[in-house]
């Protein structure tokens, strides 16, 4: 029995047991280098456009994917939607009003509703760490974490890795600097996990107030100055700084933050000459990044990241949905 009395059909139960380890994609934590490589390779093929689109659209025809977003997001939601449609799945977007987010009934009730609807896969974004895991325990279908609080955003880390690999040819041995509000960033955590897993060396660069305690225990080097943090870096990954952080006394002002941590040409100069710049978006030009750097096509990978997003999400959907038995079979 599933939660709420919904019966798990026999074929689904079997699928869960066989593929228990990867029924969901909740985080980079728990993935193996092989898992990552396989996803990147498949996404690479999608990005290269070597697979016949008509054939792709047949692959997962009849599957239902629901984008369940408890927090606003245009890019991630659109990216999953596009990925799902290119694979021939039916994609439904469900936005849940921010005002009801904190009500527990909403999350569990939503899970029960979705169970009754026989959804195949859920993409969930939620403003609270751990909320996607909570939902995953309550639903019968597969779940992809589209970002939970300050915890993880695994598909972002995967698309970042693919973006880097395409330009640098590898991940192993690269020096990656992740700069900015690491404390509140799920992108930073997933990237740290993935990049260290794949053999890259990661530094985090931020004032102490924007770094969580014991971050070095995640296998990263800690820097408080851009000059030392960016020295010799292959990749400079910038994080978004929310305006609320000033009110919480984490940094004094935007202008002081930009002065010391905003990425401009001068700060970037200490990185390797061929260093590339990334940002998960949406960008605050003039806060964490200078517009000139962000728009420099030779240095900035920001557009590539968006493009790789769709490819990665296609690979993730195929991975989880491909483990299910044929639709309509034993049900």
């Amino acid at each position, binding site marked *: 029995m599933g939660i709420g009395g919904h019966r798990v059909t026999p074929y689904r139960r079997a699928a869960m047991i066989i593929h228990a380890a990867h029924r969901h994609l909740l985080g980079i*934590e728990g993935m193996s280098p092989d898992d990552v490589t396989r996803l990147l390779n498949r996404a690479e093929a999608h990005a290269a456009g070597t697979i016949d689109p008509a054939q792709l659209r047949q692959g997962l025809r009849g599957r239902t994917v629901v984008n369940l977003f408890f927090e606003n997001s245009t890019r991630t939601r659109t990216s999953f939607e596009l990925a799902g449609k290119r694979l021939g799945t039916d994609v439904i977007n469900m936005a849940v009003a921010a005002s009801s987010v*904190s009500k*527990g*009934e909403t*999350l*569990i009730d939503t899970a029960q509703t979705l169970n009754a609807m026989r959804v195949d896969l859920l993409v969930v974004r*939620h403003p*609270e*760490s*751990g*909320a996607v*895991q*909570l939902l995953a325990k309550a639903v019968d279908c597969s779940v992809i974490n589209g970002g*939970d*609080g*300050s*915890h*993880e955003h695994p598909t972002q880390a995967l698309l970042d890795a693919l973006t880097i690999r395409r330009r640098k040819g590898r991940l192993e041995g690269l020096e990656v600097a992740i700069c900015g509000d690491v404390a509140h960033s*799920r992108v930073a*955590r997933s990237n740290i996990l993935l990049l260290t897993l794949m053999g890259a060396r990661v530094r985090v660069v931020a004032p102490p107030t924007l770094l*969580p*305690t*014991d*971050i070095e*225990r*995640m296998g990263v080097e800690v820097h408080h100055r851009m000059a030392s943090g960016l020295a010799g870096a292959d990749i400079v990954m910038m994080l978004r700084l929310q305006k609320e952080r000033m009110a919480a006394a984490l940094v004094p002002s935007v202008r002081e933050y930009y002065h010391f941590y905003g990425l401009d040409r001068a700060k970037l100069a200490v990185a390797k000459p061929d260093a590339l710049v990334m940002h998960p978006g949406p960008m605050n030009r003039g806060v964490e990044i200078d517009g000139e750097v962000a728009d420099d096509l030779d240095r900035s990978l920001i557009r590539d990241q968006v493009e790789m997003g769709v490819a990665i999400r296609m690979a993730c959907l195929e991975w989880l949905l491909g483990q299910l038995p044929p639709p309509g079979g034993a049900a």
Partner: protein
Amino acid sequence: MNRLVVRNARLLDPATRLDQVGDLLVLDGRIADLGSVGPVSGARVVDATGWALMPGLIDLRVASREPGAEHIETLASLADAAVAGGVTTAAVLPATDPPIEEPALVELILRQSDRIGRARLRPWAALTRGFGGQVLAEMGLLSAAGAIGFSDGGHPVAHAGVMRRALAYARTFDRPVMNHPSDPGLVGVATEGELATRAGLSATPAIAERMMLERDLALVALTGGRYHAGPITTAAGVAAIRRAKQDGLPVTADTALPYIALNEVAIADYRTDVKVWPPLRSEADRQAVVAGLADGTLDALSSDHQPHDADAKRLPYSHAAAGIAGVETLLVLALEQVHTGSVGLLDMLARLTTGPGSIIGSDAGRLARGCPADLVLVDLDRPWRIDADAFRSKARNTPFHRRPVQGRIIATVVGGEAVFGTLP
């Protein structure tokens, strides 16, 4: 006339360090004799061979949801749950709705406790009006009504001036002032460290406890007021209490069940049933707290019983309610520390009886002539598994469901009457 003789029990009395096989006589709800008791005419005789007979437990901190949220816990279900856990006196926290800040509410709880007739429920009263931390509650009137002490529960009193006056004013009525030792400026749902960082949860540094404690201890030195700190959950907290006692300050302290039975690792996977306030600590802190219980730096072990309904726990970790419904598991989880050799049996029993009893001015908690016959008969060795579905509490929020434990309560006696289990 109520006459009961328990024969051949292993009598355990932490107050006198008694640990020997003997008999105990109860007359009219009080202990009349112990050791070797001759034939008593008309008495009910219980053969307790192989079992331990100890004073009923005194629990310094349990939350009631009556008045205000009776669907979660009533005074009756709380009193039932308490005796099922071997607790015969339970000090009820004031965080009800409305808060226990009116003498009439204090009297209501005492009257209800008598009427229910199981565990003795003894109310703490609010320290400040509406737990606002600004206006003192009517300590004199509340004391006269029967309040055992004053506390704002989980709301620490932030203003040093208010805390100073509370400590000074309470002296007149010889009641303890209990403050929740955590700095209100340093909050979070987990303890700062690698675990919270990986989980992406807001975190409070363990040092927040010591900060509030040191301020309070300085105010105790200034005012001479009776102060109780609880729960103590960190090594630094235990050390601060130890120093204060060495300095001769009128200070007592307790810790609570979650902090000896669990460490922060339990929050991995965002299990909300282990969410407590203050949050679970590191293993080093847990061990320091257990050591503080063993050497008596900490006077008491409380259950910190916090009943919640399922909805309050089925939320994202940050939003889920904090607390464990622990009163029914207090004795068996305390015994866990005894079985592992971390705390001596009589030492642990002292933290569960005489220690808390002296803080709230109870004459129970001892096996001595003239004391109330509040007793627990226990098979100390019997293994079993905690079963939340069998709880007497209306709440089921426990992370200890199915946990294997050793030591089963045969019967709990209050005022000479079996109120839980059966006397064979």
